[in-house]
C-alpha cells in the first residue's frame, strides 16, 4: 500500500505547490514533480507482496514491479513535457497537467493491485476520467476538444458494458473477489458473455480491434506528451491487469479466452498495420503502431504462463522506452515547427538534427524489432512464450505482420535520411530534461536487450 500512499502524498504536495507558488511557476513545478517522482521510484524500488482489506487489495511482487515501471515511464513523460507546458496558453495550468496525470497513475496502481472487481473498477475509472481532461487539455484547439469528447463517450460506453459484464459475474457467482471466483466460475454461456464484456472494457483501454476506433482521433488531438502517456503507461497497466485477471479469475475458462485472444490478436495486428501504412500524420501513425504493439503484448497474455508474464512485463519496459523516444522526438519537432506532425516535416531532418534523427531511428528499429535493439528481444520472448503454449499459427501470423510493420517504420527513417528537402527543420536544441529523457530512452533501447540481466531480474518475481 505504501506506493499508493506515497503517490497520494506527492499528489497533495503538488496541489499545494500549485496554489502557493507564484505564477509563472511551470518550471519550478516541473522540477518539483520530477524530483518527487524520483523519490517515489526510490521509495518503491524494493518490490513487496501485500494483501490488505480482506483481499480487496492484493499487490503481488510482480504488480509492484509493474508499478515501478509505470512510475518511471511517467517520469519520462514529465521530463518531455516541459517545453509544451511553457507555452503561452498552457503555462498557467501546468499544475493541472501533473495532477491529472498522477491521478490516472494512482488509478492504474489500483488497477494492477486490485483483489476484487470493485476496487479494480474504481481504479479503472480513476485512470480514465482524468485522462479525458488530459486529452482535451488544449481545449481551445478544435482537435483536442473533439478528441476529448470522443474519448469520454467511448470510455463511458465501454465502462458501462464492462460493468454490465461484471454484474453478470457477480450475479452468477455471488462474489467479486478474485480469490473466490475461480471456484464459482463454470463457463456457462452467461459467464462467457460476461467475460467478453469484461474483456471489451480492457480492450478499449488497450485499443484492441474492434474496440480501437477512438485511438487515432484521441492520439492526434491530444497534446503530444499526453499521447505518449496514453500509448505506453495506460496500455502497460491495462495489459498487466488483463493478464492478471484472466489468469487468476477466469482460470476455468482458459480455453475460451485463448480462442478469444487469438482472434483479437490476429485482427488487431493486421488491421492496425493496414491502416498504419496509409497514415501521413505521425501521431495518427503512432496510434496505429501502438494498436499493433498492443496485439504483440497480448501474445504474452495468450501464453498464460509464468514465462508469458515475464515476457509481458519485459515487453512493456522495452515498449515504454522506444515509444517515449519517438513521442519525445515528435514533441520536440512539433514545438519547433508550430505544431507540424506530418511526415513531410521530417524530410531531411538528418541534415540539420542528426542526433534527434539518430534517436528516432533507433527507437523505430526497436519498435520494428530489429536486432540487436531491445525490441527484437522483447518480441522474441513474447513469441517464444506464446509458441511454447502451442499457439504457433497466431505466432506465425504475427511474424508475417512484423515484416509489414518494418515497412512503415522505415518510411519515417527514409524520410529523415534519404528524402531530399530544401528546407528541413532548422537545427535546434531541446530542453535539458528532454535531452536527458531521450538519452535514457536511447540507453534503454540499446542496453535492455543486450544485458540479459533485466529479463532475468523480472523473471525472479
Amino acid at each position, binding site marked *: 500500500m505504501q506506493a499508493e500512499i506515497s503517490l497520494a502524498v506527492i499528489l497533495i504536495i503538488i496541489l499545494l505547490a500549485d496554489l502557493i507558488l507564484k505564477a509563472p511557476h511551470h518550471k519550478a513545478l516541473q522540477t518539483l514533480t520530477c524530483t518527487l517522482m524520483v523519490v517515489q521510484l526510490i521509495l518503491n524500488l524494493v518490490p513487496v507482496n501485500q494483501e490488505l482489506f480482506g483481499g480487496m487489495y492484493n499487490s503481488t511482487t510482480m504488480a509492484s514491479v509493474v508499478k515501478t515501471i509505470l512510475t518511471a515511464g511517467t517520469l519520462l513523460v514529465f521530463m518531455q513535457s516541459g517545453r509544451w507546458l511553457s507555452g503561452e496558453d498552457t503555462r498557467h495550468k501546468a499544475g493541472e497537467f501533473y495532477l491529472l496525470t498522477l491521478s490516472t497513475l494512482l488509478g492504474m496502481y489500483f488497477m494492477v493491485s486490485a483483489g476484487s472487481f470493485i476496487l479494480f473498477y474504481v481504479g479503472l475509472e480513476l485512470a480514465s476520467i482524468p485522462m479525458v481532461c488530459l486529452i482535451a487539455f488544449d481545449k481551445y484547439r478544435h482537435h483536442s476538444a473533439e478528441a476529448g469528447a*470522443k474519448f469520454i*463517450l467511448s470510455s463511458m460506453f465501454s465502462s458501462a458494458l464492462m460493468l454490465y459484464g461484471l454484474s453478470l459475474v457477480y450475479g452468477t457467482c455471488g462474489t467479486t473477489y478474485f480469490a473466490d471466483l475461480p471456484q464459482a466460475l463454470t463457463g456457462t454461456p452467461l459467464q462467457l458473455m460476461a467475460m467478453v464484456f469484461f474483456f471489451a472494457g480492457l480492450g478499449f483501454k488497450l485499443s484492441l480491434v474492434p474496440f480501437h476506433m477512438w485511438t487515432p482521433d484521441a492520439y492526434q488531438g491530444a497534446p503530444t506528451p499526453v499521447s505518449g502517456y496514453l500509448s505506453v503507461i495506460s496500455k502497460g497497466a491495462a495489459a498487466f491487469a488483463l493478464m492478471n485477471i484472466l489468469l487468476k479469475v477466469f482460470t476455468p475458462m482458459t480455453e*475460451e479466452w485463448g480462442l*478469444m485472444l487469438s482472434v483479437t490478436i490476429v485482427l488487431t495486428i493486421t*488491421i492496425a498495420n*493496414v491502416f498504419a*501504412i496509409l497514415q501521413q500524420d505521425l501521431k495518427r501513425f503512432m496510434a496505429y503502431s501502438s494498436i499493433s504493439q498492443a496485439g504483440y503484448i497480448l501474445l504474452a497474455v495468450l501464453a498464460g504462463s509464468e514465462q508469458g508474464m515475464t515476457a509481458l512485463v519485459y515487453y512493456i519496459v522495452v515498449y515504454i522506452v522506444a515509444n517515449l523516444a519517438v513521442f519525445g522526438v515528435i514533441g520536440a519537432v512539433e514545438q519547433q515547427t508550430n505544431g507540424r506532425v506530418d511526415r513531410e516535416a521530417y524530410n531531411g531532418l538528418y541534415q540539420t538534427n542528426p542526433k534527434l534523427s539518430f534517436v528516432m531511428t533507433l527507437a523505430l528499429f526497436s519498435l520494428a524489432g530489429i536486432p540487436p535493439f531491445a525490441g527484437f528481444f522483447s518480441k522474441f520472448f513474447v513469441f517464444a512464450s506464446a509458441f511454447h503454449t502451442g499457439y504457433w499459427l497466431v505466432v506465425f501470423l504475427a511474424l508475417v505482420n512484423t515484416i509489414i510493420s518494418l515497412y512503415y517504420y522505415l518510411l519515417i527513417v527514409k524520410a529523415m535520411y534519404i528524402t531530399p528537402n530544401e528546407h528541413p527543420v532548422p537545427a535546434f536544441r531541446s530542453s535539458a530534461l528532454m535531452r536527458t529523457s531521450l538519452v535514457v530512452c536511447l540507453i534503454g533501447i540499446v542496453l535492455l536487450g543486450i544485458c*540479459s540481466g533485466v529479463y*532475468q531480474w523480472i523473471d525472479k518475481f
Partner: protein
Amino acid sequence: MDYTILILALPLLSFLVLALAGMKMPHRVAGAIGTLSLGAVAVLSYLTAFSYFTAERTAEGTYPTLTPWNIDWLPFTQQLHIDMGIMLDPISVMMLIVISTVSLMVHIYSFGYMKGEKGFQRYYAFLSLFTFSMLGLVVATNIFQMYVFWELVGVSSYLLIGFYYTKPEAILASKKAFIVTRFADLGFLIGILIYGYYMQTFTFTPSEEQLMKAGMVLPWALGLMFVGGAGKSAMFPLHIWLPDAMEGPTPVSALIHAATMVVAGVYLVARMFPLFIGFAPSVLHWVAYIGAFTAFYAASVACAQSDIKRVLAFSTISQIGFMMVALGVCTSMNPHEGGLGYMAGMFHLFTHAMFKALLFLGAGCIIHAVHSNEMETMGGLHKYMPITHITFLIACLAIAGIPPFSGFFSKDEILTACFQFSPVIGWVMTIIAGMTAFYMFRLYYCIFWGKENKELHAAHVPHESPLNMTFPLMFLAAVTLIAGFIPFGHFVSANGESYDIHLDIQVAATSIVVALIAIGLATWMYAREKQPVAEMLARRYSGLHRAAYKRFYMDEVWMFVTKRIIFRCISTPLAWFDRHVIDQFMNFMAWCTQAFGVTVQPAQSGRIQTYTMWFLGGIILLTLVLLLF
C-alpha cells in the same frame, strides 16, 4: 585477480572514446589515449602472468584454471547457457602477454608510421577495438564467447585492412578477407551448434555424461570448428585472403596478420586439444597434414615473390602451418610420449609472434624509407638504415632457426615432435624449414645488399626511421634474442605437467645444417650485385617460376570456382527465383495490403456512432465465436 576485467575494459573504453570523440581530438591526443590504455593493459597482463605463474599449483602439479570473472549472459536451460567471462589458464595467460606486447609495440610504432595520415584517430580507435576483441577471444570461458569475439576480430580486421578506403585494392582486399573468413566461420558456427545441441553445454570441458551424449558427432563438431580456425589461420586452400590483406597499413599487418589474429585458429585447436586427443585423434592428424601441406605450399610461393610484404605474408602462412603440424602430430596428453607437440606449437606461436612482428615492423620502416613494397626499389639499404638492418637480420636468423635466436628452440621442438610421430613428416618439415631459411635470406639480401637501385636512391635518399619506430624494433629484437631461453615447458604443456625442455641433438644438428646450407645458397645467389644464378634458374624453369609467383594460380582457381561455377550455376538461378518469385510475391502482398487499407479506410469515419457500432458488433461477434466453437 579481479583486476583482469580491466584488461578487457580499457581497450573497449579507449575504442569508445576514440570512436565517439576522436575526430575532435588532435592526432597526438588520440594516439596517446590509445597507447596509454594499451600500456596499462600490457602492465596488467604482465602482472596477471606473474601472479598466475608464481601462485601455488594444484595437487597434481598443474596450474589451476581460474575464472576471476564470469556472468551468465543468456541462459537457455539449466545447463545450456552462454557466459561471458575471463578464464585464465597457461595458454590464455601466454596469449595475453603476446597480444598486449605486440599491440603495445604497434601502437608506439604507429605514431611514427601513421604520422599525418588522414583518419589517424580512426586508426587508433580500430586498433583498440581489435585489441579488445582479440583479448576477449583468448580469455573466453566458453566456445560461444570465443565465437562472438572471433567475429569481432574479423570485423576489426576488415576495418583495418580497408583503412585506406580510397584505394580500390584495399577495399577489395578487405572484402576478400572478410568474405573468406566469414565463409570459414560458417563451419565454426555449425560446429558450435552441433556441440551445443548434443552436449547441452558450451564449456570447453564438458562432463563425462555430456561427452557420452555427443558420441559420434563430436569429431564432426571439432572438424567443423577447425574449418573456422583454418579460415582465420589461412590454411590451404582458405589462405587466399592473407596475402591481399597486406594492403592495410604495415603496423596492422604486424599486429593482426602476423602475431595475433592469424594464430587464432592455432589457439582454437589448442583450446579444444583435450577433446581432439580424446575423441577425434584422426581429425587432429588431418590438421597436421593440412598444416604440413600449407607450410610447404606457402614456403615455395614465398621463394618467388617480389613484394616484401607478400613474402612475409607467405612466410606467416608457412609458419602457422608449422604450429598446426605441431599440434596435429600429438597422440597423447603426456609430453614425454607423443604430447610434445602441444608445448612446441604454443612455444613457436610465442616466438613467432615476436620475430614476425619485428619483421613486419622492419618492413614498415623500409617501405617508409623507399615508398614502395617492391624489392627492385631496394637493395643496398644496409648503409642507410643500420638499426632496421640489424634487427631485421636478427629476426631472419630467428625464423631460419639459427641458435641462439628464439626461433631455433621452438622450431627444434616442433621437428622433434614430428620425428616422434613419423619420420616422413619429420623430414618434410625439416626441408620446409630449410626453404624458410632460403627465402628469408633471399629477402634479406635483396633488401639490404644485392643490386642497389642507385637511380632511385639518389633521387630520394632512404633514411633511418625516427625513434618511435625503431624502439619497437629494438625491443622486439631483444625479446627474440632471449625468448628461446624461456623454460617454456615449465609453463605450458599438454597435461599441465612441468618439465624441462631438452634439445634432441640429432634433430637440432640436422636442422642447423639444413638451415646453414639454405642460407649459404641464398648468399651465393642473391648477396652480390649481379645475380646470374637466380636469373638463370628463373629463365630455365620459367613455368615453375611464374606459377610460384602467381601463387600456383590458387586465386584463379577460386575465381573460377566462384565466378564460373557458383555464380553461374547456383547464384544466377537463385537470383532469378528471388527477383521473379519471391520479390513478386512480396510486391503482391504489398499491393494487397495497400488495396485492403484503401478499402477499409472509410470504416474509420471519425463519427462516434460508427465507432460504437463496431464496438458492439465486435462484442457480439466474439461472444458468438465463443459460444459456437
